[in-house]
């Protein structure tokens, strides 16, 4: 059963100039909002609307990981289920929609995926996570605060890692908790980055997903079990199988590890099998420093 959100969708505006100022249109503050013409219409066209409406709740839904709710699902008793019965100004359909929206939020809450709520910044969330590890370990000193400082990591909520795609200047940050397999991750990443999602070029097979683990090694994603991958991944990069121009990220990483600028990356060998290391052949300015991938 798919969860349907009932949200007021506006019909096409007949007379844009007039309606810009609702006072001209006769908008009275006392008027019940939700009466015509701003009601929802369930005609044929809106069947598609509902799909998109469903997908609009938060950035999470954009990645296709829609929360599906059974009709008979009851939320946890610890969370307050709000009664909607005394909302006098509501349109019947809106009422229904909001109850479902509320349910959905509760479900989301159970899975800990309301983005950005409660409103605590990432620095504080990181520390909350570390506090909890401290208490759990029951030692005098902090045992397990070795979470990556550059990755905000809150306890049950989100696990953001940076993702870059070869050839795309601007990277993204994604929440790995939303995925459960390499397949879904890769597909969603590719559709996120590609300009034309329906293009033939943006097929999963044309791309390789690489990741940098905690030790700084760059590996092809796919060999270790998903859970192990989640625990060790630090950063992701999508490589285009067609052209092997190493991205800025890889070059920067190699440069950092060798403690100096890399003047030329000669070639990049992407192994065919997951789990094999990517080998970077590069000329460096200094002989000092060490980088496991540099040869």
């Amino acid at each position: 059963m798919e969860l349907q959100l009932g949200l007021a969708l506006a019909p096409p505006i007949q007379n844009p100039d007039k309606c810009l100022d609702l006072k001209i249109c006769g908008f009275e503050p006392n008027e019940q909002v939700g009466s015509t013409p701003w009601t929802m219409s369930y005609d044929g066209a809106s069947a598609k609307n509902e799909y998109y409406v469903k997908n609009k709740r938060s950035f999470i839904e954009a990645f296709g990981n829609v929360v599906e709710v059974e009709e008979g699902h009851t939320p946890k008793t610890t969370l307050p289920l709000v009664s909607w019965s005394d909302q006098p100004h509501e349109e019947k359909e809106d009422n229904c929609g909001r109850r479902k929206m509320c349910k959905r939020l509760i479900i989301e809450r159970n899975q800990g995926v309301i983005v950005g709520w409660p409103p605590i910044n990432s620095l504080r969330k990181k520390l909350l996570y570390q506090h909890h590890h401290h208490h759990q370990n029951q030692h005098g000193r902090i045992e397990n605060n070795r979470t990556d400082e550059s990755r905000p990591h809150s306890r049950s909520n989100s696990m953001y890692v940076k993702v870059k795609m070869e050839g795309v200047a601007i990277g993204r940050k994604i929440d790995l908790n939303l995925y459960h397999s390499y397949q879904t991750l890769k597909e969603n990443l590719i559709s996120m980055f590609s300009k034309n999602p329906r293009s033939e070029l943006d097929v999963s097979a044309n791309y390789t997903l690489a990741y940098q683990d905690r030790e700084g090694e760059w590996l092809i994603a796919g060999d270790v079990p998903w859970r192990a991958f989640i625990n060790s991944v630090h950063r992701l990069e999508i490589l285009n199988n067609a052209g092997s121009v190493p991205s800025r990220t890889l070059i920067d990483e190699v440069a950092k590890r060798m403690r100096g600028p890399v003047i030329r990356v000669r070639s990049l060998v992407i192994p065919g099998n997951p789990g094999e290391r990517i080998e970077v052949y590069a000329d460096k300015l200094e002989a000092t420093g060490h980088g496991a991938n540099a040869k």
Partner: protein
Amino acid sequence: MAHSFPEEVLEHVFSFIDSDKDRNAVSLVCKSWYEIERWCRRKIFIGNCYAVTPRIMIRRFPELRSVSLKGKPHFADFDLVPEGWGGYVDPWVSAMGRAYPLLEELRLKRMVVSDDTLEMVSKSFKNFKVLVLSSCEGFTTDGLASIAANCRNLRELDLRESDVEDLGGNWLSCFPESCTSLVSLNISCLGSEWSLRNLSALERLVGRSPNLRRLRMNRAVPLDKLANLLRRAPYLVELGTGAFSSELHPDVFSNLSGAFSGCKELRALSGFWDVVPAYLPAVYTICSGLTSLNLSYAAVQSSDLVKLITQCQNLQRLWVLDYIEDSGLEALAESCKNLQELRVFPSDPFAAEPNVTLTEQGLVAVSEGCPKLESVLYFCRQFTNDALFTIAKNRPSLTRFRLCIIEPRTPDYITLEPLDAGFGAIVQNCKELRRLSLSGLLTDRVFEHIGTHAKKLEMLSIAFAGDGDLGLHHVLSGCESLRKLEIRDCPFGDKALLANAAKLETMRSLWMSSCSVSFEACKLLGQKMPRLNVEVIDERGPPDSRPESCPVNTVYIYRSIAGPRLDMPAFVWTMDEELALRLS
């Protein structure tokens, strides 16, 4: 009339006028005052870096010494703005590098700063003194090394809450031995692992900075080093400790206690990561002088917190975790009669059950006992309309009130009603209220109250509230002083937005995410209002690949004389008709 005073005299008079508002008023008197004023303005604050371009700023104010810029919208703090959205400071620094060689101060908030930019700052401005990077990102300790190495007269380096990538170098040692000008250093956001080389670099730096008055360290600085640092900087006014834990050892304790008692100027304390409660008494000797105490990283029980806080009778600001509980807040209300600002943060917001007894009672107690209270940020799990009535009645002087009930749409837990009336009382009684954040179960009625009474309100944050467009209409049509409005997950749609389009030009910005604003309305707004930038953020792909009536994920609207920006990433679309046509 304008000729009766020579320019130099007017300029001298203007030099006493500091506030931006006054300066702006001066510049409107007549053309010659405008001209004189613009040549002698030294400081500028730009609340939205996309509202104006560097070129426009430089053209009007050719002699600035201090520039403050803000980039991303506030909700970026809560991961609601995708990475790559914008807020790059680089074009500003490039332009200023050429135009303002005498620039002394740069203050940035929520902007993307690169190491290259930092290097450019360090080399372009010979007299650079103050760098404040608040909630910024995109740079590493290498960038900091450039600043340290090249800014000969650096007075202030403040990295508050920025996301800095630690590359493991020893950037602190890049401050030359001859650098003795530091007054303020805040590196509290840096990592928790440091080598001995970093620590000794810090000690040496502190030791040769006789003017150092504000020092906020990061977690990596261990407690046993703190005493030495304090002895090198006994004139500190503000201190942020590192980790406040150590093996319990009487020597360490007495050493620390002695060091603290030598710091007679200390007024503000923060840090306190990993606190071992037994060490808290080391600060008792300076408690009576403290005006500001930030214990919001201290996971310590209420009784230990109370023992510390009750010694700070002059406390004006307290930030603390909800471990303090209602009982601790009651003790606070008894002891700290000068309290002006209270922030209570959640220690475990994601747990299903409350882990502490912190309820509306605590805040009510503080509102009763602290007559000077004006600023509140309070995270808790339950509230009542009655409690809000009481708080409003007790403290009509409130200027900032942010209540966050952790579970969205939580009603009054006794009556099960919405909290409309309670918040209504707040806006009605607190006539000087400038900032308000709402939570709990709320209908359109609360917005009616806000629109009617909150005439001085400048910033309003709304989440999971309201019934429909009427709510938004009340706010936009009623709140005369509104500058920033941020809304998430509310059923507000096109009607109110379009009806109040003109209002948006009087505000800095409006953020609406996960609401019911259609693509069509965004387009209409963008086309009809040339001085507004209407940007749609949607990671599902281009908004025109869906029906026009389909709601957009996020719309961010801000006034601008710069026109639509050109550095938008793939998931942001401008609704400016011309640009959209040009780019398509």
